[in-house]
């Protein structure tokens, strides 16, 4: 019985570790979707973030630079998505899927020479005092720097989205672009900005994988996390705080699978691998009611390009 406590603690710690890449991806996508732009390119963005961060770290040894490079790479792809969907008004689903394919392709090609090499990586840092709290310390305060950054991002983004005038503008643009436009807000500029910013944050999620979680480059290392992130955005109803819980919940499911296997539980691996997706389906069923969407101010124009003169 005494085994159970460390088991739970380590599983929870692993949940945070496994949840962090999802968290970055979801936080980024919340910004993009709040502005009314749907992004199915997360998987590709994370892969590009992972490889570009890894390459930067490998060639410069500077982790700060690595994150900046990953963000720039994400922003560049985000700019492509923004140009297609906002300026050319291409179908957002199609453009998003193209970004995923593009990102997968680029990262695979670019990463050929980096398989098996070792680069500078983020190592766990114990936070003084906090990490001494029993259980909590181990679960939350014995991680790499990126995890701590994600902790800070959550309340900051929450404040930003719900309490600042910029957040108000952002929500208005996604929910009722004509309303924003008639108040003199530049809908196109706002959508461009948050699509690019969101994509660059999403890319950090990928960099976390190659620089902290796996600490190496593996082709297709995101393994479907991008798709789970898309479902999580809905689950979180575009709310950064709920995104935290969602990301750790899914991280926990993944972690639990590995743990159970490690202690030799007799569960088919296929079932464990299926679990996150199963949960995704369940989550989607419970979060797609109309009333809920109105309450939380869902970006009602998600997927719909805006044009002043277009007749509907």
């Amino acid at each position, binding site marked *: 019985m005494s085994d159970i406590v460390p088991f739970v603690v380590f599983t929870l710690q692993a949940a945070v570790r496994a949840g962090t890449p999802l968290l970055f991806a979801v936080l980024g996508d919340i910004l993009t979707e709040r502005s009314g732009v749907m992004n199915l390119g997360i998987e590709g963005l994370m892969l590009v973030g992972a490889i570009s961060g890894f390459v930067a770290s490998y060639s410069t040894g500077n982790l700060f630079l690595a994150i900046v490079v990953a963000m720039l790479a994400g922003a560049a792809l985000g700019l492509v998505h923004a140009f297609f969907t906002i300026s050319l008004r291409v179908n957002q689903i199609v453009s998003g899927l193209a970004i995923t394919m593009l990102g997968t392709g680029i990262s695979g090609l670019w990463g050929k020479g980096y398989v098996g090499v070792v680069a500078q990586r983020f190592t766990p840092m114990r936070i003084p005092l906090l990490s001494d709290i029993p259980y909590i310390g181990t679960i939350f305060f014995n991680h790499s720097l990126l995890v701590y950054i994600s902790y800070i991002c959550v309340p900051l983004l929450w404040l930003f989205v719900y309490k600042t*005038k910029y957040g108000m503008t952002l929500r208005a643009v996604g929910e009722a672009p004509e309303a924003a436009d008639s108040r003199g807000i530049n809908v196109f500029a706002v959508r461009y900005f948050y699509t690019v910013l969101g994509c660059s944050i999403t890319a950090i999620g990928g960099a976390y994988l190659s620089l902290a979680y796996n600490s190496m480059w593996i082709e297709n290392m995101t393994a479907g996390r991008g798709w789970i992130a898309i479902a999580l955005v809905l689950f979180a109803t575009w709310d950064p705080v709920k995104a935290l819980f969602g990301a750790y919940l899914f991280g926990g499911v993944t972690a639990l699978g590995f743990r159970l296997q490690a202690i030799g539980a007799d569960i088919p691996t296929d079932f464990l691998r299926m679990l996150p997706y199963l949960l995704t389906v369940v989550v989607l069923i419970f979060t797609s*009611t109309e*009333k809920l969407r109105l309450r939380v*101010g869902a970006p009602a124009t998600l997927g719909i390009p805006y044009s002043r003169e277009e007749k509907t």
Partner: protein
Amino acid sequence: MLEMKDIAKSFPGVKAVDDVSFVLKSGEVHTLLGENGAGKTTLMNILFGIYRQDSGEILIDGKHVKISSPHNAIAHGIGMVQQHFTLVPSFTVAENTVLGLRELGVFPRTGRVERRIRELGDTYGLKVDPDARAWTLSVGEKQRVEILKILYTGAKILILDEPTAVLVPHETRALFDALRKMKEADTSVVFISHKLDEVMQISDRITVLRKGLAVDTVDKKATTKAALAKMMVGRDLLVDVPRTDVETGSKILEVKNLRVNDDRGLTAVNDISFTVRAGEVLGIAGVEGNGQRELAECIYGMRKPLNGKVFIDGQDITRTPVRKRVQLGLSFIPQDRKGMAISPNLSVEENLFAKNYATQSVPSHPLLSNRTGVSTASRKLVRDFSIVTPSEKTRAKYLSGGNIQKVVLARELSSSPKAVIAAQPTRGLDVGAMEFVYKTLLEQKKKGAAVLLLAGDLDELFRLADRVAVIYGGKLVGYASPDSSNREKIGLMMSGASGAGDEA
């Protein structure tokens, strides 16, 4: 103080505004009068920076200004309440009011804003709760918020695009009171409408538009309703379509204790019962959004009732699929013309025979359509219903609103239905097309169909209906005979002041 000079604007295929000039003096209520499609909205959208004019210029206080976005317009003290409201549903009234304003700090505080909204509301008689979320407001309240939003910015020019279209008579009176107070405060108002009574009540000057051209600008004092009507339509207004009295027959359409939810899962139709007999038109009067849509869709079979029954000719069809209902002689003219009534990207011909699978009015193989049969039949329908279209193969979306509605009428009524549900059948149509719709519906009545007419326009109901029931908040709150002397009474019932009507 404001002048629009030789403004022109074309959209693909139409010259929406054709060299129109327009002068707005300070402190006047200036009406833009014109039929649907005359270009009123387009002209004002140009002034508010939503559209860019192809040519022409705008002067304020004698100085040229370039208005290329609503942002510019607001900076010049111009505010506009658009036909479709522009509120953010999840925001409060106060948040909607300050959205986008420069005065907003990084962390907006709404306390002061709320106080100011209350003050403005008191001054102009436009009361709203500043703390309420926009999606919970009624249509009348939403409009008050839209106006307050503009007054809040201190605009000196207020444009109202068909504000009374969504209001019941006493709300209209309150709006006019507010407009008069704004005039006293030296605010200029551009009031867009096509309802002559209102125009004569509130305007100082009137500019009439027809087919994108400015016909004339006249002083209210120097004109009459008849003169305006003639300018507006270019000929004398339609003679009253005589309401032929038809012997009513047996009960055709019967609805018992119907209860239906809307898309949000809230009760939209609450325990409604009525009967329509053969050769009778039952009008259901109501402000939009009081359950009309859900009621119509439920009777037609597109929405499941929670409770209650629907009968046609005595047969219970509550659980019958739409296809079967069509075969039993039920027809539907939906209010959402481009979304539901037609398929915009299919041809006129395909739209005309979209129901052929059920009606077999042109006998066809179950899997293959009878191309030649359909072509011949649709040429005849296009002729009979005088649908103006380049050809039967033209995509339906390229037709004008009136002609699209004719396609719908042709499809729904050429099969001699037993019962017709017509939801807002003339909304957005010009007078000519309206006349056509009235004539066609009255023909159905003469042929002995039971017609259920859902409408907000009382004139339309008075013209067509044999009985009028009023719907409010999903309930039938009373009946009245379709008579102009009942206008006020029906208006009150439509706004929820209950107990005013007769029992059925």
